[in-house]
């Protein structure tokens, strides 16, 4: 027995040595990034107090090395596997514990403070004493202690009160585990929900959900209601964590997947947990029914409140049960649980208002001063309980959401979940992708995003768990472009070689297409990178699609002379490539990356290139569809089709086409407007100090260089293609504005023709209309001579702005003055010259703190009904007032220098 253990330990040592070898080989970062985390997980389980320190250290090292060998090297991102490894490290640790007798002096500490200080002070400036393997590079990643921005542990010492665990608090009597009254139950449930929501929003589990002490060990709770609530809560947390990790579309800024080794009631089955809560829920339901007001009964206030309290607890239990079972319904294979989920979600929607109205019944925390880490809570919650679980990173402060806010959050979450239950009925993958994009635009939370992802492509990698990706791609492509190779009517449909080629292509296409869906599951900011990244894959796919098309074409023309298979699959891939490029470019507007002086080339690229290609791609696909419908049926030779030819076209891309055309016109309008604004000097390019337009341009469109079709337009080409010098005579500003006006008008008409109209399209129509009117005004000379830059207002839509010409008065005073001077300088009349001189003086005064007086001068200026002469005299008067600044000397009707201004 003893020998066996020794062998085991030797193995352990070997592992440790291997691990250190890995380190020296330079595999530092990827495994290490998670090591700190893992150390935590294992730390909680290994009872380290019973180990002598040296062994403790080894445990730590050893358990780490197990991780790095077992999990991390294989798959560093698979965090949810760690649970297993924690247990294995626990086993190992306990073996070591057995091996070594317990009571030994651990360290032999020798104080060297003075020696050390004097020795180190002898070092020269910049001289380091360090071990062989340790250099400045490693030193950089050390946490700096006592730096409030780096050292999360600093705060621990500043909190004076004692932090007790659940067991300690129960012993002390500050936390009850039996006979909780209804107010307490309501308070605990609502606070727990708030913690849950805060966790889903991206905070650490330890600092949110597990500040609830009851969840640390629900089994010691005697109160049945609280106990079953805690168990269901733990199961819910575990399920949410599992779902989000599995979907894999979250980044660290969205969600923290660590579970810190907390036990999630894994030994209670789903059905048992639901059964427990249901039982208690029914009990409360009964009491609630019995205490309901009956006709003709006189009720005391006490009875009434009692009834309300019982009902409040009852609906909460119901809510948590429904929420958990709805989540479980989403997990069911092949989307079989969706109907159930719909039902449960609508039940939740019904009870949410009742929860909101009874939030005030729960016990509330005292409103004492909250510090960054510590905040007042109700009994049973301890914000500092997991303070020792803070990761060795810079401090992040967790602010738990309010109760009302959390229920409202759940309300939105439930609405989102309801909206995704219809996805399997949408049909082709293109429609589904459109839905995914639309869904993502509303910035949904990580949970709904993950559930949607897993619904479409569950771990078995089949669409909705049932159809293979290749098959559903075939359906989708048939609907998009009807390639002869996929049409049963065609002569090559049953050709073995052709089939093989198509299957091979689509098998290759499956991964990038699935990635398109996954991209929409990431948060909006991350999507931009991902769109750029996918272009590589799509470009390769494009090449293969073209080859397959060429081969199929040679087969096809042998039997059907007048049909073509060229650029058929290719067109389909191109459609996705263009979509990715467009999404990439547009995300720059949404993320507010582009400066106004960059708009002209961004709009140009969208208008002249991306959407132009998109329109022609859709045209080609649409004509393929038409061809396919009119094609003779080659599979049934000699028999004429009896169906009437004059039926409505079954498949058409008219809607997509119209939208693409409309968007092209919109961007055309913006492009022309921006150019016109540049021509008349309202938009100016700032002087770049460190870069120029070319650098910016190349940077903006850098990802497009990997794509072969459409080819990248380089800056020099862009300059050449967009040069207005091509036109003879040069277009005037008015003409450019007129062209923009026309574009917006066309966009509006195209959008109007789309049915059915979505809310988004209606918004864009409104924007197109507004811009049309603004352009019309500009053509008519509105604000012609002001040099104020136009404003692009993205409040209505984050991609299509409304162009606004700003009111002069909203500008700072000195800018108004500047504009006036500019005006007068151009207008060479005598009065104007005098006025401009005066304005110069006024301008001077502005910098001599005569600002208040100036406010009145603009008033005078705007009052255009006066003759020039009158105005001039007023200016002179105004000037007089400036020379004697303490007085009010305005005489005319328009000049009232108020005393408070002076």
């Amino acid at each position, binding site marked *: 027995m003893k020998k066996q253990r*020794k062998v085991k*330990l*030797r193995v*352990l*040592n070997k592992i*440790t*040595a291997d*691990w*250190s070898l890995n*380190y020296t080989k330079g595999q*530092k970062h990827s495994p290490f*990034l998670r*090591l*700190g985390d893992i150390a935590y997980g294992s*730390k909680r389980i290994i009872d*380290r*107090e019973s180990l002598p320190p*040296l*062994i403790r250290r*080894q445990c*730590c090292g050893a358990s*780490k*090395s197990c991780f790095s060998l077992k999990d991390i090297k294989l798959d560093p991102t698979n965090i949810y596997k760690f649970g297993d490894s924690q247990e294995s490290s626990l086993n190992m640790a306990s073996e070591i514990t057995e091996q*070594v*007798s317990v009571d*030994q*002096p651990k*360290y032999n*500490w020798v104080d*060297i*403070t003075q020696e*050390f200080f004097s*020795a*180190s002070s*002898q*070092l*020269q400036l910049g*001289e*380091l*004493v*360090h*071990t062989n*393997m*340790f250099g*400045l590079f*490693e*030193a950089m*990643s*050390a*946490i*700096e*202690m*006592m730096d409030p921005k780096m050292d999360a*542990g600093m705060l*621990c*010492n500043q909190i004076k009160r004692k932090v007790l665990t659940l067991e300690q608090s129960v012993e002390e009597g500050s936390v009850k585990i039996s006979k909780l009254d209804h107010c307490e139950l309501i308070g605990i449930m609502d606070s727990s929900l708030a913690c849950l929501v805060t966790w889903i929003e991206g905070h650490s589990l330890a600092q949110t959900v597990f500040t609830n002490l009851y969840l640390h060990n629900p089994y010691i709770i005697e109160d049945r209601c609280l106990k079953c609530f805690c168990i269901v809560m733990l199961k819910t947390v575990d399920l949410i964590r599992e779902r989000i990790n599995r979907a894999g579309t979250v980044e*660290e800024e969205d969600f923290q997947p660590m579970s810190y080794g907390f036990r999630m009631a894994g030994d209670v089955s789903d059905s048992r947990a639901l059964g427990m809560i249901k039982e208690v829920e029914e009990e409360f339901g009964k009491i609630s029914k019995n205490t309901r007001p009956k006709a003709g009964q006189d009720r005391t206030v006490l009875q009434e409140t009692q009834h309300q309290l019982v009902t409040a607890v009852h609906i909460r239990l119901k809510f948590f049960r429904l929420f958990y079972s709805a989540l479980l319904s989403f997990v069911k294979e092949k989307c079989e649980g969706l109907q159930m989920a719909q039902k449960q979600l609508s039940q939740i929607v019904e009870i949410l208002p009742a929860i909101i109205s009874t939030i005030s019944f729960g016990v509330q925390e005292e409103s004492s001063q909250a510090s960054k880490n510590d905040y007042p809570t109700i009994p049973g919650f301890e914000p500092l309980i997991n303070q020792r679980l*803070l990761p*060795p990173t*810079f401090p992040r402060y967790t602010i738990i959401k309010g109760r009302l806010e959390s229920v409202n959050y759940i309300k939105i979450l439930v609405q989102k979940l309801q909206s995704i239950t219809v996805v399997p009925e949408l049909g082709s993958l293109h429609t589904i992708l459109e839905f995914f994009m639309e869904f993502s635009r509303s910035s949904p939370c990580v949970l709904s995003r993950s559930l949607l992802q897993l619904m479409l492509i569950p771990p078995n990698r089949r669409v909705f768990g049932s159809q293979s990706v290749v098959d559903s791609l075939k359906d989708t492509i048939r609907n998009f472009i009807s390639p002869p190779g996929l049409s049963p009517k065609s002569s090559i449909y049953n050709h073995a070689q052709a089939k093989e080629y198509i299957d091979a292509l689509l098998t290759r296409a499956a991964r990038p297409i699935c990635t398109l869906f996954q991209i929409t599951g990431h948060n909006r900011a991350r999507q931009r990178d991902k769109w750029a990244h996918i272009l590589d894959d799509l470009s390769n796919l494009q090449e293969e699609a073209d080859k397959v098309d060429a081969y199929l074409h040679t087969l096809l023309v042998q039997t059907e002379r007048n049909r073509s298979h060229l650029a058929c699959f290719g067109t389909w891939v191109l459609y996705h490539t263009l979509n990715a490029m467009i999404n990439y470019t547009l995300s720059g507007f949404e993320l507010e990356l582009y400066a106004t002086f960059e708009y002209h080339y961004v709009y140009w690229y969208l208008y002249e290139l991306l959407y132009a290609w998109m329109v022609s791609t859709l045209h080609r696909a649409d004509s393929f569809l038409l061809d396919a419908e009119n094609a003779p049926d080659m599979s049934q030779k000699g028999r004429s089709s009896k169906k009437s030819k004059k039926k409505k076209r079954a498949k058409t891309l008219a809607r997509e086409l119209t939208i693409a055309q409309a968007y092209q016109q919109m961007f055309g309008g913006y492009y022309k407007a921006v150019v016109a604004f540049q021509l008349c000097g309202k938009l100016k390019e700032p002087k770049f100090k460190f870069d120029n337009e070319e650098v910016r341009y190349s940077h903006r469109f850098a990802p497009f260089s990997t794509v072969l079709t459409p080819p990248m337009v380089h800056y020099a080409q862009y300059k050449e293609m967009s040069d207005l010098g091509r036109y003879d005579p040069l277009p005037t500003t008015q003409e450019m504005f007129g062209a923009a006006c026309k574009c917006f008008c066309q966009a509006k008409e195209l959008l109007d023709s789309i049915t059915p109209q979505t809310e988004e399209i209606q918004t864009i129509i409104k924007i197109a209309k507004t811009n049309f009117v603004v352009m019309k005004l500009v053509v008519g000379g509105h604000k012609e001579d002001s040099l104020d830059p136009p404003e692009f207002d993205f409040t209505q839509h984050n991609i299509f702005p409304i162009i606004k010409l700003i009111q002069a008065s909203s500008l700072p005073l000195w800018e108004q003055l500047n504009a006036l001077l500019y005006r007068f300088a151009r207008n060479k009349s005598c009065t104007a010259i005098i006025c401009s001189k005066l304005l110069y003086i006024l301008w001077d005064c502005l910098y001599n703190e005569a600002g208040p007086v100036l406010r009145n001068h603009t008033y005078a200026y705007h009052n255009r009904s006066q003759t020039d002469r009158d105005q001039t005299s007023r200016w002179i008067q105004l000037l007089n007032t400036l020379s004697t600044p303490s007085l009010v000397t305005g005489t005319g009707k328009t000049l009232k220098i108020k005393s408070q201004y002076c």
Partner: protein
Amino acid sequence: MAVDSPNLTSSGTSGSRPERQKLENWLNKSMRIRMTDGRTLVGVFLCTDCDCNIIVGSCEEYLRPPDSQPKEDPRILGLAMIPGKHIVSIEIDDTTVPQGSENLDGSEAASVSACFDHPDYM
């Protein structure tokens, strides 16, 4: 901050000044440092400079003084740098051969090299 002159980074060069020698002898040993705010850090001594800034690896943080009861759970910090001005006392572990563990000799080197914990900063 790149160090360009080789004599600054050269470590383990024997025949250097006795002070340096002394510091080098302490390298890779366990070190216990008390900080001005009362926390105690235990880790492996890796690096120091003229301002007595110390870098320790595999660092564990204890809130209470080391001898107090009951024993508390440490918080794992990994690689930590303690500015010299916040150091109250330094102690070094003087156990040359760990007791009762001829089995463990081979892994001592490993535990030392395991000290380069890179905390997750991201």
